[in-house]
């Protein structure tokens, strides 16, 4: 049994070496859609970070009491509740962004990362490391999405956070606003990462 990772190691793992999107290529479904605008991505990421960390924390706190058989149901309930809280909060305080994000906030529930961290880590580990693991994974995930958005919004709209950054004569690459642009951007990012920073013993798929 290898030495359990220190808290610092857990954090770095989530952020880089085991980055959920780039290494495990998980959980891109729900959030890739909003990466054509930086502000939307930021809000979505905040919602995801809140959900993953709180869910991991809660699942970990309850891990000694939750019967084995119903743990999936319990996890789903916990995750869904936090997502609803996020959805209501965004609707109340950022109504325009809530309109733009549409149903994608609700889809955080099915985001493989949330459930993945609960299953893989939180239900077997104490609260504080679980919290860190959730935090690290979700921040790592968010950074990748922001990177994609940093590529998509300037090329597709000519702006960053709504402020013009491309020179006036620039014709926007409309494809970047739409689905194919997201696929290509992420695909190329994963490719570059895997080509220049390969993992040693194959890709970890925890």
């Amino acid at each position, binding site marked *: 049994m290898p030495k359990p990772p220190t808290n610092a190691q857990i954090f770095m793992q989530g952020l880089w070496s085991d980055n959920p999107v780039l290494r495990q290529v998980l959980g891109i479904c729900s959030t890739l859609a909003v990466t*054509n*605008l930086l502000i939307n991505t930021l809000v979505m990421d905040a919602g995801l970070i809140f959900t993953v960390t709180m869910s991991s924390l809660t699942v970990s706190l*309850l891990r000694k*009491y*939750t*019967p084995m*058989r*119903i743990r999936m*149901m*319990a996890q789903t*309930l*916990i995750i869904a*509740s936090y997502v*609803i*809280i996020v959805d*209501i*909060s965004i*609707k*109340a*305080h950022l*109504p325009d962004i809530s*309109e*733009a994000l*549409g149903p994608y906030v609700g889809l955080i529930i099915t985001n493989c990362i949330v459930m993945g961290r609960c299953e893989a880590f939180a239900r077997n580990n104490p609260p504080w490391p679980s919290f860190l693991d959730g935090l690290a994974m979700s921040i790592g995930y968010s950074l990748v999405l922001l990177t994609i958005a940093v590529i998509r919004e300037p090329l*597709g*709209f000519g702006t960053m956070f709504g402020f013009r950054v491309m020179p006036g004569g620039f014709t*926007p690459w*409309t494809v970047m*606003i*739409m689905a194919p642009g997201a696929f290509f951007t992420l695909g190329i990012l994963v490719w570059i990462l895997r080509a220049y920073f390969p993992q040693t013993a194959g890709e970890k798929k925890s």
Partner: protein
Amino acid sequence: MKKRLFSVVYMFVLTLVFTSIVSAVKVFNEEKIRTNQRVKLERIILKVLDIPVKEKTSDEALGRIYARRVKGVEVRDKPLYVGYAEDGRTIVGYAFPIGGSGFWGPIYGMVAVDPEAATILGIAFYRHSETPGLGARITEDWFTRQFQGLPLHPIEGDKKIFYLKPEGTGKARDELDAVTGATGTSRAVEAFVNRELDHFLRDLWGSVKKG
């Protein structure tokens, strides 16, 4: 058996706890959400009626302007917003909500006409599911401004109130620029806005004139 019972009770208690938390959050934010929706509607109505409102106006200030200048009434069970001049008595226009299917989902908007229903004062779209950067551009100023001053007439036969043509090719007053690259959305908007305007002129205007 005991294990089973514990599982059931556990789930029940967990559900109770979490649904209570969620309900509490909802109730706590309900007021704010309703206010947001009301303010958004008021802002749109003021905008289409061409009543100037500075961007940075607070919600309360907006509410005051709205209360002074607009009166909401019902005509044949449909909402109508009457806009008044500063003096509070001269009518400057009528605004009414419109809606129809866009390319991806329903589009909701607001249209204002002048006191004789002869031209359009303004139009705005406030809810849609169109593609950002393409169909969603119908909310942009350049698109909605084209409608200002558009002459209105009930649709007779093939003659629509306006047509959306490829950008830059429109020649007549009733030929407006569509959104380049968003043919589906443009066609949808042309269809339902014409329909709603025609409906207003034919069915509701008579009742409005009477008061």
